[in-house]
């Protein structure tokens, strides 16, 4: 006999004995469920299927509430939405696990690091490269120059040392080149749309790489003779050989991307002109203007700016550096400049930096390599005047001491009065900072700029004030890392693609993930525990060319892992990210109801060790939501009853009786528990 069931204002037919969920499901009305299982009686423990039923005092669970004639149900009221959100947040607050590994989450480009490291550990290098290229086109470049923030968050650090994520990426790049198995993505049929990209640096090229795959015709307009931007003209060959660069750039070209060299925005082309000829424009001009120190004597010979110096070395210019070179600055550019100077024949090379070693922003490995090569460091020192007649001869400097922290959190250097002294030098290279040259867009251009000389954009869409003109990379952010620029390039490509297709430019969502801790620091307390649980296994060492030898040329210093060491190091990965992350219902529902994964996390979260005693069935109590499906399936469907609830309340767990290994019970290895 049919009965009238009203759900969300519409009438449906129901049968006696059906639940609200039965009727809703049959009519395509979505109600989230977690503890419901076909063939097993409703349990009602997860509470995610709560719906409002007229005249009922409190919301009812749709999976168990029976329908009756005239029942009125609402499934999307504010109350229900709020309860669903809180329900998930409560479950997440006691979920000591990671959906996505911290390395993936830390990577600005969101590379699936756990994925590619795992593939590399199994020797599946082409698949590993393909996975990397979903997010970045340049494994070879990044495997050599990326500062690898992922490695700081790698949880292997709690056991011994990070997994060598960066070097593994380099190996994958190199071996695929070697074997001719490089991944070239397919290109969609031509869309008929065109995009002009200003700047052939990592941001511009990445943007082109991803737009080309969508079938859009990209033209990269580059001021300098070759592509690469900072990766060619800012990073010395001994770190990133130009032939590596050329090989990866060639892959971009092979997708049908056009490169126009020696073509300058503001001189050869204008924004307005490009807007007429192309459907969209991406400004990725980088930050190639050196910041001057503004001290007297800068006009003397022998005075250079860091990035100009590095660029000109690449362009083939010859330098007479004399015997003694002083490089001012603490960043990677300074280190690059000083190590380049050594290779150009300078005998004494110094870094002069106004703060101390601890505050240097340069990559510590670079600093270490520089010291190995004989570079000396003067910390807490700052030049105030350059002395000389035509060519510089000496640098007048003062000593500094560290005072209160400034806006960046680093302690400000304060001049020590009366501490002036002279440093004799033939060359000074100033590498204290750089910024974009925004004048190239022309004074009339509507694109707004910031006080730091960068392009202003809508952060969600990458659009400037002119809707078809986008910007990204150093030109938008100020000087940052290669990987951040590549991420900008890809995300801008997503938005440009939507723009070209006439779609809405919705914000690009972040990664939805529950986490065991917001950062490695938060998990420090687990160090003792993890050191005991995982046997230590030292990190693979990167073989280096002998320092005395390597300063004689610009040959690459890091020689790369052997395959054996690569697979060993990749095998050290703890696989923090959950293997169910792609099909996990908790994750899907949590995202759908807008639950914030860490909203209610407290110190009261219980941490369990995984039970790995059974040969096939593994249980991680941290991920258990106590839905009881495994217990009930084993008991009621299979009549074995190997699993049971243990204890009660907050500390309830699911275990075989007496906590013995599952195989010591009547377990039949049927896997019903896992399926359910």
């Amino acid at each position, binding site marked *: 006999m049919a009965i009238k069931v009203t759900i969300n204002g519409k009438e449906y037919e129901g049968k006696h004995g059906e639940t609200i969920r039965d009727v809703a499901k049959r009519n395509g009305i979505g109600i989230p469920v977690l503890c419901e299982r076909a063939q097993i009686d*409703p*349990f*009602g*423990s*997860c*509470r*995610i299927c*709560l719906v409002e039923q007229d005249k009922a005092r*409190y*919301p009812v*669970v749709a999976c*168990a*509430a*029976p329908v009756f004639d005239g029942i009125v149900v609402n499934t999307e009221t504010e*109350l229900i939405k*709020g*309860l669903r959100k*809180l*329900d998930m947040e*409560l*479950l997440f*607050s*006691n979920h000591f696990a990671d959906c996505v590994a911290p390395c993936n989450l830390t990577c600005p480009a969101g590379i699936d690091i756990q994925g590619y490291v795992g593939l590399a550990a199994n020797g599946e290098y082409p698949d590993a490269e393909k996975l990397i290229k979903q997010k970045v086109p340049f494994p070879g470049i990044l495997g050599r120059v990326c500062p690898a923030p992922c490695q700081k968050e790698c949880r292997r650090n709690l056991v011994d040392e990070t997994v060598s994520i960066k070097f593994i990426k380099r190996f994958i790049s190199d071996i695929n080149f070697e074997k001719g198995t490089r991944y070239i993505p397919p290109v969609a049929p031509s869309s008929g749309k065109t995009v002009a990209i200003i700047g052939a640096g990592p941001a511009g090229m990445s943007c082109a790489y991803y737009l080309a795959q969508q079938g859009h015709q990209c033209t990269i307009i580059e001021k300098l003779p070759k592509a690469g931007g900072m990766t060619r003209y800012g990073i010395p060959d001994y770190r990133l050989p130009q032939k590596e660069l050329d090989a990866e750039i060639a892959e971009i070209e092979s997708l049908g991307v056009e490169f126009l060299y020696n073509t300058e925005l503001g001189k050869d082309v204008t924004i307005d002109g490009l807007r007429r000829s192309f459907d969209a424009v991406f400004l990725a001009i980088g930050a190639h203007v050196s910041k001057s120190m503004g001290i007297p004597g800068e006009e003397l010979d022998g005075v250079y700016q860091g990035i100009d110096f590095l660029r000109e070395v690449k362009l083939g210019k010859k330098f007479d550096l004399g015997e003694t070179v002083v490089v001012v600055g603490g960043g990677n550019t300074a280190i690059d400049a000083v190590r380049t100077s050594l290779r150009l024949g300078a005998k004494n090379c110094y870094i002069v930096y106004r703060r101390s070693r601890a505050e240097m922003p340069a990559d510590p490995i670079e600093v270490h390599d520089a010291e190995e090569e004989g570079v000396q460091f003067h910390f807490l020192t700052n030049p105030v005047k350059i002395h000389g007649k035509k060519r510089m001869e000496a640098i007048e400097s003062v000593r500094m001491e560290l005072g209160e922290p400034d806006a960046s959190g680093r302690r400000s250097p304060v001049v020590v009065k009366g501490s002036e002294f002279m440093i004799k030098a033939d060359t000074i290279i100033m590498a204290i900072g750089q910024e974009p040259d925004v004048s190239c867009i022309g004074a009339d251009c509507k694109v707004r700029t910031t006080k730091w000389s960068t392009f202003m954009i809508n952060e969600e869409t990458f659009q400037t004030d002119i809707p078809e003109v986008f910007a990204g990379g150093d030109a938008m952010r100020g000087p940052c890392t290669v990987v951040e620029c590549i991420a900008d390039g890809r995300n801008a490509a997503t938005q440009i693609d939507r723009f070209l297709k006439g779609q809405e430019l919705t914000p690009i969502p972040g990664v939805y993930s529950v986490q065991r801790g917001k950062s490695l620091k938060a998990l420090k307390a687990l160090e003792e525990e993890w050191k005991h649980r995982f046997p230590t296994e030292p990190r693979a060492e990167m073989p280096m060319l002998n320092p005395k030898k390597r300063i004689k040329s610009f040959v690459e210093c890091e020689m790369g892992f052997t395959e054996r060491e690569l697979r060993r190091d990749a095998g050290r990965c703890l696989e923090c990210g959950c293997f169910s992350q792609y099909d996990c219902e908790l994750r899907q529902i949590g995202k759908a109801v807008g639950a914030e994964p860490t909203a*209610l996390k*407290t*110190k*009261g979260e219980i941490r369990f060790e995984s039970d790995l005693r059974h040969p096939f069935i593994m249980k991680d109590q941290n991920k258990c*939501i*106590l839905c*009881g499906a495994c217990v009930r399936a084993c008991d009621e469907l299979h009549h074995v009853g190997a699993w049971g*609830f243990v*204890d*009660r*309340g*907050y*500390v*309830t767990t699911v275990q075989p009786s007496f906590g013995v290994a599952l195989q010591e019970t009547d377990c039949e290895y049927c896997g019903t528990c896992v399926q359910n």
Partner: protein
Amino acid sequence: MKTLRVGYNSCGIAAGAEETLNKLHALLDGNSNFEIKKTGCNGMCYLEPIVDVIENGKIYTYGGLTSDKVEKFIESLEKGKHIDDWIILHPDHSTAQLSYQEKQVKLATKNIGVIDPENIDDYIAAAGYQALEKVLKTMNRQQVIDQVRASGLRGRGGAGFSCGMKWQFAKDAPGEEKYMICNGDEGDPGAFMDRSTLEGDPHGVIEGMTIGAYAVGAQVGFFYVRAEYPLAVKRLRLAIKQAEAKGYSGKNILGTGFNFSLHVIEGAGAFVCGEETALIASIEGKRGMPRTRPPFPATHGIWGKPTNNNNVETYANIPYIIREGGAAFSKYGTDMSKGTKVFALAGKIKRGGMIEVPMGITINEIVNDIGGGIINDGKCKAVQMGGPSGGCIPAHLHDTPIDYEKIMATGAIVGSGGMVFMDQGTCMVDIARYFLSFTVEESCGKCTFCRVGTKRMLEILERITAGEGTEEDIPLLQKLCDSIIKGSLCGLGQTAPNPVLTTLRYFRDEYEAHIREKKCPAKKCKALITYRVVADKCTGCTLCARTCPVGAASGERKQVHQIDDLKCTRCGFCKDACKFDAIVVE
């Protein structure tokens, strides 16, 4: 011939009634002028051990009669005299303690403290089993239910659902095999009415339950009594045996062909088993985890059969209702809450014990007239009603008449009847934390909102009482409370937030003091108080230094002592030990 009637429930025994009884026997066995009987507790627990002297139809009630007083007591009686100072209730004139009894109306508890619970003949002599006989011989099942409905009796366990309606559902449920349950789990901390009833008048409950079984059509009944009540279980088992022997229980009751067998099951220590579906699961030999409803136990209870579940007190009211009629019962009480209710008074009240009063009596009347006010002549700050499912009613609402709906309007519930009185020394935030820690301990763990939600709430309250609360805590508590009420599977979760909600509503200033000023106005929360020696009262007796378990209190003999704040654990031992009031808490 004088009858000496000794109050012999658990509370009396704990107060020394066993020693008193033994002494009486030692002195009077063989003396034909005296007869010694045991009885339950007359409700004046604050004055136990209690001994009634019954002579010539008059009852002289002696209080505080510990064994050391027995000799003098007997001496006096043998001389035909009474020791007036020791008499708390006198047949000829009023006493100070009379006010404890005056406003009471004993319907369900009329036999407790009067009859010997271990002697069925005492019960029969007190109109015992007359109601059952009337029912089995002159009424049909529907008539019984109609009387109960007419009485307006609502479930006395706390939910307050109409008893008559419940019986109607179970009667109407299809099926031949039906069950009755008597819920004697009494898990509310601070409640001891059911214990007192089962210990003092088990037959009254048996009779009520048997009448219900007839009405509903049940053949088997279970008493579910918590294991912490061994005397109640013992007396219940004995009563059932005696009832069976006399034909009031078991097969062919009173020769009418009606069969109803009773079994006693002891609970195993789970508050949640007071919830009826959890109780049923427990009887079925499972973990006490509630299940979704519908279906309701009235149609699908124990082993899927129709089951009626009522509280001890509910059944205890039935014999009166049948004997005198539903209308007589409904003469007492208010519009929506008819009859009387048994309450257990405890906490900072001068006179703690069990009372039975008509619904509609105000809280003030209970505190002042019956309870005699707060100890140390303090002021009543709040009364906690309904245990962990209830709430704290502040003093300014104590003129509220006790009635299911009116009390619910304050945010508390009438509950099973436990009333715990608090004074200025009680920290209301600590009370909320205390109830929540109880709930977290007792949650069955099945549903997300209760299992995880209450734990998260407890953590917030623990932080607040430890001086680590933040402004966001109160709105977060509010949100969690609201959601846990609406999202939980059973009554435990649905009512767990009540103590927090009522204390937030009426004592928000205390929460704010803890959070903003890091102070505990009641001087209870350890992290927010300090112990200090008052210099001009200290005599240097060194008692505190010797008592202090961590060496925080120290000083030279005859010199003013001091307390090292960093070492002090706020255990309070020094303050308890000091004979000169020289240690204060700030």
